[in-house]
């Protein structure tokens, strides 16, 4: 699908260029998202001293990263605004305080000039500390603005050396702040602690973690992530659910996002007109370490508090998200004056979202878990009056029964007419 779209976009662009008869500047092609909608990617590269280690395909980690970056810069789709940020690139000293501020925007997020970006990457040499947390904060600032999807790709070869600022909590704060910001992490030749830290960062933002041992893996993965950023996705609308139905925000059809703390309830309202059907589904993501048994409950309740229908799901073990859904077809109004009141007759349905996640020991409970709510109000279904399709039957038993009935009816009719003729003759 996506490939086809891109091909189509490419074909359109080519056609446009041909018909115009001039070479249009890159980025001005019709059909490409420009300006506000452009997906933004910030590559955050660890340039700390440990990148000197020579253990990826016989070359240093730094050389592998540079090679990968060159190939990624060549393959970056036109519509993606790419930036590069380094951490630990400049300060070689031992002062922790200074070392932990060492993060720099190497190439600003914007339309990509491949040559310029490559030149900038070529200048890098492994130097200092590994301030992952501060770098992520700055990277989030780099990506600010615009409506498109935002993605940070963090490439590191060591865990954060700037405690007590936990990069995992930083990531969670970033995710809670901005909409649609995902952090993917790649660990070069990882050890246990670093693996945990990087996967925690990824988990906190709905991203992925990958271990990298070879240059080719690094190139493929970064390319994949940049391509993923270019895929058009629906951006959810931030909404603030209330603690009770009376204060709840009224939602229309769409995709919404919110935060829900452990044990908290979130309420939303939806107007459902007679003869239409409400469909709602909710996903609560486990963006941190949670205890292994959990559940999500979504209830549709009338304004007076009567439960109409509920969707519930429970689970156990490792998971990213727990979701539940429900649908509520509201019957046509009895009075028949449907056209008189278009909005006034609509029923207010309150949606309550509850979760039974519990935080594992030592895990911060704020901000709340990310919640995604889909609301669709569509036309109501054709209600069923019979189990079978239109009351029709099928199968050999049906045929047998019909044949037998027909035969008996025929025989009976024959006898009756014989008897009637006999009676008529005698009379």
């Amino acid at each position, binding site marked *: 699908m996506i490939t086809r779209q891109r091909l189509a976009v490419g074909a359109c662009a080519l056609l446009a260029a041909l018909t115009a008869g001039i070479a249009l500047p890159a980025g001005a092609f019709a059909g490409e998202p420009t300006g506000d909608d452009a997906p933004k990617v910030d590559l955050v590269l660890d340039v700390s001293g440990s990148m000197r280690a020579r253990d990826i395909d016989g070359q240093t980690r730094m050389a592998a990263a540079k090679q990968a970056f060159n190939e990624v810069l060549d393959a970056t789709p036109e519509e993606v605004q790419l930036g590069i940020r380094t951490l630990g690139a400049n300060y070689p000293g031992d002062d922790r305080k200074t070392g932990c501020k060492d993060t720099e925007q190497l190439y600003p997020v914007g339309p990509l000039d491949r040559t310029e970006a490559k030149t900038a990457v070529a200048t890098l040499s492994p130097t200092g500390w590994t301030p992952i947390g501060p770098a992520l904060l700055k990277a989030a600032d780099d990506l600010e603005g615009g409506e498109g999807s935002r993605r940070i790709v963090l490439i590191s070869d060591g865990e954060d050396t700037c405690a007590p600022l936990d990069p995992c909590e930083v990531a969670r704060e970033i995710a809670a702040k901005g909409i649609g910001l995902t952090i993917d992490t790649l660990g070069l030749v990882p050890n246990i602690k670093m693996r945990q830290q990087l996967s925690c960062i990824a988990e906190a933002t709905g991203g992925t973690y990958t271990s990298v041992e070879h240059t080719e893996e690094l190139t493929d993965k970064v390319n994949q992530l940049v391509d993923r950023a270019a895929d058009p996705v629906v951006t959810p609308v931030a909404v603030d659910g209330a603690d009770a139905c009376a204060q709840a925000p009224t939602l229309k059809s*769409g995709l919404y996002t919110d935060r829900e703390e452990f044990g908290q309830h979130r309420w939303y309202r939806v107007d459902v007109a007679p003869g239409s059907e409400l469909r709602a589904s909710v996903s609560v993501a486990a963006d941190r370490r949670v205890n292994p048994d959990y559940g999500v409950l979504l209830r549709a309740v009338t304004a007076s508090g009567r439960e109409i229908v509920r969707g519930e799901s429970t689970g156990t073990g490792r998971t990213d*998200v727990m979701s539940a859904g429900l649908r509520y077809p509201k019957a046509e109004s009895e009075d028949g004056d449907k056209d008189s009141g278009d909005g006034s007759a609509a029923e207010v349905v309150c949606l309550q979202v509850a979760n039974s996640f519990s935080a594992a020991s030592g895990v911060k409970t704020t901000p709340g878990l990310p919640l995604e709510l889909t609301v669709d109000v569509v036309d109501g279904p054709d209600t069923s*009056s019979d189990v079978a*399709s239109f009351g029709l039957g099928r199968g050999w038993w049906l045929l047998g029964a*019909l*044949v037998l009935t027909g035969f008996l009816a025929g025989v009976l*009719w024959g006898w009756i007419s014989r008897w009637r003729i006999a009676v008529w003759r005698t009379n």
Partner: protein
Amino acid sequence: MRITRVLSAARVLSTARAGSAARVVGAALLMLGVAVSPAAADSSPSASPSDEDSAPTSAGTSFRTATEVDQGRRATANASTGDYLYWSFPADAGQRPTVNATVKLPDAHASATWQIDVYDGLRRRQACQYGAQTRTAAEDAASVNLSCTLRTVRAWSEPWANDPLPGTYYIRLTTVGLKSADLGLPVSAEVKVDSKDVGGAAAVDGSLAEPLVPGVAVAAKESDEDSDTSVAALSSIEPDDGWASGWWSDRWVWTAMGGVLAALAGVGGYSLTRGWPTRPTRVPPGA
């Protein structure tokens, strides 16, 4: 006696007829079914995605970003151990989808448990009737095969039930139990959805106004406003030949055939009691 003789003759005749009638009916049903069902299923114009042979080579990481894959097409993805991989596929009424997944594991790995979960368009988890939904791969295993056969998709169900309904289905493939040393190791996954057409046996009365496709209300509104711009949709997938309208099932053929047979049997029964007195008069004089 004349009557008994006729009756016994008729009995022979009717049994012979019943046998051949069953075959004829069966053949007629088959022909009708073959002739009618594709025409009826083709209720909306197809977008002919069968022209392109490109299968998806990546997977989404959430419901929102799930990669769309048509039934019968093999989707592949390269990922890391621990990723949650999402695909979505359309399933229509009367189909019983089976999801097959193969995960190629890295060269060296500890034993890991892999699982596929299938969710419907409302993100409700759907039960697997059978199939190895969860499987633990031994340490030396090169790959692990998973499968899940859903219940038959119905055209309608009570709002309080979670029966499978026509619409988008999501596949989630992930490892549910892993050693932390395996986290992030490269794996490749492959999924394919095939479905068995259960046909009229699963036909029910009633139908949904819109299939259970997330965002269908928003998509309908936007296509009304301007159809030129393509906007990202939560789910834009639909079966090759469009969603079935829901009125057709082979029950029409069965019931109609039953009616015809009943009428024939009625005529037969009637003429039995009447004997064949009028028959010679209907024969043309020259015969």
